[in-house]
């Protein structure tokens, strides 16, 4: 039994959940769409984009990045639930590679997020968002968004394995909000007080949001700072750095289940 094949079986388990309980992913999607509509239309009229440009067009890549980052709570919750219910122990008692459980999670969550991304992109196009860049750049933007999801996936695996109580799951669900808002996903950092804006500009989420804006050919809301020229590089570097930190931490957390 190769680790990869076992991982795929565990991924299929999650895909079977969609069929059994389609409402869970559908509500997840509706929530993302609701956020898009709330910010796009409800608040959008009062928000201006530094450097000019339509707010919906500015907002949509930010929303895509935000929904990728929010995936951390899906991952952490799923990992913690399995550990709490003894399913992880059952997997661990089986003759499968020790990376299988994490790989299964990666497969399921990446599939989930790819669908979410697609639906949000289609929804965005419906409410007037347009891609002005060339197709190759747009494809790169999508890859960078998925790269961010991949990175936070490992944060989620680490958190889910380390903090298995239900309270910890709620904490993750609450904490993603300030991290999400303290970025350029929804408003430009340049409309914030100086120190806060600097903090937001260095948020990994801002790198991915700004890079996606540039690559989709949308207004970036960036006229100064590291995101002007470096957004794409930062959108590659941040997720790789996070992955490099959290893959070993996740492996360690998995091994610590043996203590």
């Amino acid at each position, binding site marked *: 039994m190769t680790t990869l094949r076992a991982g795929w079986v565990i991924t299929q388990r999650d895909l079977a*959940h969609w069929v059994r309980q389609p409402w869970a992913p559908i509500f997840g999607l509706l929530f993302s769409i609701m956020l898009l509509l709330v910010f796009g239309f409800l608040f959008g009229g009062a928000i201006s984009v530094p450097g000019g440009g339509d707010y919906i067009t500015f907002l949509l890549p930010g929303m895509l990045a935000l929904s990728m980052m929010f995936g951390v709570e899906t991952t952490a919750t799923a990992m913690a639930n399995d550990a709490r219910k003894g399913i992880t122990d059952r997997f661990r008692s089986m003759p499968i590679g020790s990376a299988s459980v994490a790989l299964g999670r990666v497969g399921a969550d990446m599939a989930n997020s790819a669908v979410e991304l697609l639906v949000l992109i289609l929804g965005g196009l419906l409410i007037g968002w347009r891609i002005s860049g060339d197709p190759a750049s747009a494809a790169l933007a999508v890859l960078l968004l998925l790269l961010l999801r991949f990175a936070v996936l490992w944060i989620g695996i680490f958190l889910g394995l380390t903090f298995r109580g239900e309270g910890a799951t709620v904490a993750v669900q609450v904490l993603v909000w300030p991290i999400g808002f303290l970025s350029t996903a929804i408003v430009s950092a340049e409309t914030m007080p100086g120190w806060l804006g600097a903090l937001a500009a260095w948020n990994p989420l801002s790198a991915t949001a700004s890079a996606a804006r540039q690559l989709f050919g949308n207004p970036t809301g960036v006229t100064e700072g590291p995101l002007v020229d470096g957004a794409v590089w930062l959108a590659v570097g941040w997720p790789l750095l996070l992955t490099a930190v959290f893959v070993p931490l996740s492996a360690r957390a998995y091994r610590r289940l043996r203590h």
Partner: protein
Amino acid sequence: MTNHTLTADGLRKRYGDVPALDGFDLSVPAGVIHGLLGPNGAGKTTAVMALATLIDLDGGSASVAGFDVRTQARQVRRRIGLVGQHAAVDEILGGRQNLVMFGRLYGLNSADARVRADQLLDTFDLTDAADRAVSTYSGGMRRRLDIAAGLILTPAVLFLDEPTTGLDPRARNEVWTAVREISGRGTTVLLTTQYLDEADQLADRISVMNHGRIIASGPPDALKRQVGGDRVSVTVPLREPLASIAQRMSVAVGAPPAIDTDTRTITFEVGTGVVAIAEIVRALDELGVTPEDLMLRRPTLDEVFLTLTDKEVAR
């Protein structure tokens, strides 16, 4: 050693300052049901987790089905089934989906996994519920599915960690029947329980565990003899003189009385309950006492522990 399918030698495991396993020894011959009996916190689950290769030990050695649990975990895992305290099955999926998934994780291809799943569903009387979500199952059904998932490769050793805790009597009986059937097919079962009754019903041998080690081992009958056999309790009406009745009955029964003045109950340890009860009734009759209650019962787990731990201290 050769026909012992499970051996543990001086296992040690600490959690902080608390020793969960403190020189745990066990040897279980192939094909038997071995009961590991102990109160909460005795270290039963830790022992099972260690033998099932899920936790690192601080000391000692153990082998399962001929393989070392520390250095040959893979080989051990191919030969064991673990049924933990939680029913570790996916609640959203159906019973069949669960078994097919676990089957594939054990290395079966999809077709074989489906065949095996159907066999197990049939064995555990779950065929009718096979496609329903597990969240709609009763506690007993869920437990049976959980046990079935541990049997996919017909393991040499099945670990059952408190399989009936939290189940109603009917579901408990269903699980007992399943365990007997598994044992009948040649799988060695290590079963942990807090209930003397359960170990008595199922196990060929029982080991009593306390503070991380085995304090007594043997067939159920021998163990019960060690703790003094059945108990007969007589509750005496208020107007009757408790002490003198106890005194005179004690002569008839040939055992010292244990008197509880609050409940006005006199308890005797007796060899064979049914014989003793006849003598007690006769003695009461001669005394002209009509008891409020007369009860024959097995020693409780508390009594087993008190007796065994007293002996351990005395040694």
